């Protein structure tokens, strides 16, 4: 499987990647080439068990492939130490998950500020953008349409839709180069789904972040620059412009 290169130059480059949970059986993921440029959006879809979550773990540097390379901002995750991979993930990647996105006992604002607590780089970039990470969090929450009065509320007091907006703000704070969203809209109803996607796309464009969006809902693919379809057990079709 391969994905076409982009004119902006690759932010993320995957080559000859093979990964499986059990080394004796056929690999779960077998990606010959995949690249993603800054500001570009990629839609990744596939049925359950095709390795979507594993791919996110690999891109986030949590898991390592049995074979191949994953380069983020020119650095090969495979050759980095665990601590360096953790730092690279914290500094350059923002994640949004399907549900249970937030730390329930923290306030909305503290949830958004979490990446700045682990990454000095994200904190510094938030400071450059808004003079202060807290102000940056407030701005993002405001842009994502969350009532400022909710900022001090505990995350568990919010509705699912509100929680997803907070998760998006958290992923965007400090302007990470890569935004990875794992089925972030599956728990939302139709209207909320489209509204959330609009906001996410707009904010990632504004931050010049590349967006890797994982979903099994193929109807969303048209909103993204490219599409990558994963198929079990290892085969996937080449990415195509949507």
């Amino acid at each position, binding site marked *: 499987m391969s994905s076409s290169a982009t004119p902006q130059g690759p932010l993320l480059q995957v080559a000859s990647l093979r990964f499986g949970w059990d080394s004796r059986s056929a690999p779960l993921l077998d990606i010959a080439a995949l690249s993603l440029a800054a500001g570009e959006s990629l839609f990744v879809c596939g049925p359950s068990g095709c390795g979507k979550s594993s791919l996110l773990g690999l891109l986030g540097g*949590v898991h390592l492939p049995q074979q191949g390379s994953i380069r983020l901002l020119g650095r090969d995750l495979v050759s980095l130490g665990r601590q360096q991979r953790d730092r690279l993930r914290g500094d350059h990647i923002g994640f949004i*998950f399907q549900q249970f996105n937030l*730390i329930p006992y923290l306030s909305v604002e503290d949830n958004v500020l979490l990446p700045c607590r682990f990454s000095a780089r994200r904190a510094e970039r938030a400071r450059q953008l808004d003079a202060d990470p807290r102000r940056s969090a407030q701005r993002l929450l405001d842009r994502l349409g969350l009532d400022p009065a909710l900022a001090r509320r505990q995350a568990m007091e919010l509705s699912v839709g509100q929680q997803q907006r907070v998760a998006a703000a*958290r992923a965007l704070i400090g302007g990470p180069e890569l935004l990875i969203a794992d089925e972030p809209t599956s728990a939302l109803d139709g209207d909320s789904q489209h509204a959330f996607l609009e906001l996410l796309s707009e904010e990632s464009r504004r931050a010049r972040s590349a967006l890797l969006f994982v979903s099994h809902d193929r109807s969303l693919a048209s909103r993204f620059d490219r599409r990558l379809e994963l198929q079990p057990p290892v085969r996937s079709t080449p990415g195509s412009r949507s």
Partner: protein
Amino acid sequence: MKAMLWLALQSAWNRRHTLGLTLVALSLSVAMLLGVERARDAAKQGFEQSIAGTDLIVGARGSPLQLLLYSVFRLGEASHDMSWNSYQRLRDDPAVAWVIPLTLGDSHQGFPVLGTNQDYFEHLHYGDQRPLALTSGRRFEQLFEVVIGAEVARQLGYKLGDKLALSHGQGPEALASHEDLPFEVVGLLARTGTPVDRTLHVSLQALEAIHLGWQGGAPLPGLNIPARFVQKFDLQPKRVTAALVGLENRAGVFRLQRALHQYPDEALQAVLPGVALDQLWNMLGIVEQTLAGVSLLVLAMGLSTMVAIVWAGLGERRRELAILRSVGAGRRHIVALLALEGLLLSLAGALLGYLMLGLAAQAAASWTQAELGLTLPAWGTPASELKLLAGVLLAGLCASLLPAWRAARLTLSDGLMPRL
């Protein structure tokens, strides 16, 4: 680290109800650990303070420890006395600077009564060579006058001029009363933190006087000698229970001790207070070590509870840990988070335990003083307690590394999305 501390505090607060139980278990074990240490210190200090400047304790031959117990701590009874003649010969020895005669056997409402003379107030020292002092009144001068210790005055509410009757025998079982010859309180001693506080002091002659007409520990029927006539009798003591001896030159202590052991007229023993105190302390050391062992076990149980609760809670926290991983937390952050939680919990347990013990010691101060003769300090942190508290924190930190290690393993296998 600042971020992890903040997060650990927030997380612990979120689970405050569950962790509260651990905290109670931990703080109780810390209170017990410190309590044993404090009681040990108080007991040792009380021992060391109870007698100072005395070179020898002399009494009838028997157990040196028993002699120490009844002459200094007013505990138990002497099986034999020493004769007045022996006391006088001791007093007249040129090597001896002073001798305090002690006669025990009577009591008042459970407090021991000591018959002695003015040398007691002149020469008895305690603590750091401090002499006895009166807070009010004077020493006894007349026959039926009594000088009472601070704890006796406090517990029984006596003041100068009050009258009291002595009982024959010691302890609560003392039945026969000398109520026909009451004593007047003429002096109140300042608190010493020693058995002196729990003692009533009368003259040797007064003890002779109240036992006129007594035989075999009971008054002779029909014989009642009124107070105004007792002066007419010979009140010269015939025997004393023990004597405290101060030497002109301490270098001669072993010579005198040997001489007393070879005393031809009576079987006597002379005990060096420091040596006897050490023996007694070593005997009590087994109890102390057992108590310390039990409190360490209790602490271990408290820490085990903490580990078990944190460990059991990890299953529910896998998503939380995965979220932290996704926002940049590494394995070391996860380990630090769990270890800090354990450390904070141990710190809170140590502080709460310290506070609980302080309040308990404050509330039970008069009881421990009266019943155990221990002056337990409620507050203040000596170096030994600081070491114990530091040990608790270290043990808490080490114990929490176990769930921290498991959390780190879980986060590695879970990745960014735990499969629950």
